[in-house]
């Protein structure tokens, strides 16, 4: 059993489907102590993601394109993995103006957001006003989500 949470690429056959190529499936190497069952809020978040994927072009009245379905799928994989840690608060789920998906957690002086920018890349931002801390970074598919989970946990502990 791994001691970190990861998103793992899995190569699958796509048969005659025209887009071909790779399919990415999130799997979890469960960390020590992880309950391994998704948080109760995951189905709600998944419904929100499907609603985001269905947004029509121009949905923001300023000509925004429809979100990229591949990015929404990547966001679903990421949040699915994060939810398996258990006992984490439900995120706010939003599209981003750039066509990505953003998850936000906020409690008291602490705030964390992770923005899925592309099929395999996300950037995150953490702020704690009480400690005057601000940190940011990037995470790519296949890498550990340990930092993301740690920041969400920090926000949760401010409640």
């Amino acid at each position, binding site marked *: 059993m791994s001691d970190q949470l990861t998103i793992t690429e899995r190569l699958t056959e796509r048969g005659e489907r025209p887009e071909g190529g790779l399919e990415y499936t999130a799997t979890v190497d469960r960390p020590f102590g992880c309950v391994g069952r998704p948080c109760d809020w995951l189905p709600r978040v998944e419904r929100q993601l499907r609603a985001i994927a269905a947004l029509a072009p121009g949905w*923001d*009245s*300023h000509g*925004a*394109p429809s979100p990229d379905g591949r990015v929404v799928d990547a966001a679903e994989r990421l949040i699915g993995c994060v939810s398996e840690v258990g006992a984490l608060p439900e995120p*706010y789920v*939003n*599209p*981003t*103006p*750039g*066509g990505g998906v*953003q998850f*936000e957690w*906020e409690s008291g002086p602490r*705030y964390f*957001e992770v*923005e899925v920018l592309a099929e395999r890349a996300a*950037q995150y*931002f953490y*702020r*704690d*006003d009480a400690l*005057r*801390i*601000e940190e*940011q970074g990037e995470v790519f598919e296949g890498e550990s989500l340990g930092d993301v989970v740690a920041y969400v946990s920090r926000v949760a502990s401010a409640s």
Partner: protein
Amino acid sequence: MSDRPIADDEVLYRRVPSKPPWFQPPDRISSYTFKLRKGDLGLSVYRKQEVSAEAVLSDPRSLPGSFLVQATAGEVRSLGNAKGDPLNLRVIAVGDENDPGHAEIRGPQLGKLSQSAADALKKLFQRL
């Protein structure tokens, strides 16, 4: 219409639709409200001295139920991140006859506002 420089004490309006992803009831404004769309050079705001709140809200691009948040240009320019480091934001007049009072908040890098800047702007701008 005016493209004269914007004084520090000028009040700026930012339009916020009252629904996700801009706003989560009952009172939470998302950082989405302060992020740039693809192709934007800066974040659109309106100058109180040049255009009324009613006119900003009645613009055809305004979604029904939108409201305004406000801050002064000086507050934007002096904004720092949580650590106190300056964000070096600029406020530039870009209004024309078709969009009077329009101005933009721009980051040090044209066409880019950091997550830190969006978060700081979210905390700064207050509901009218």
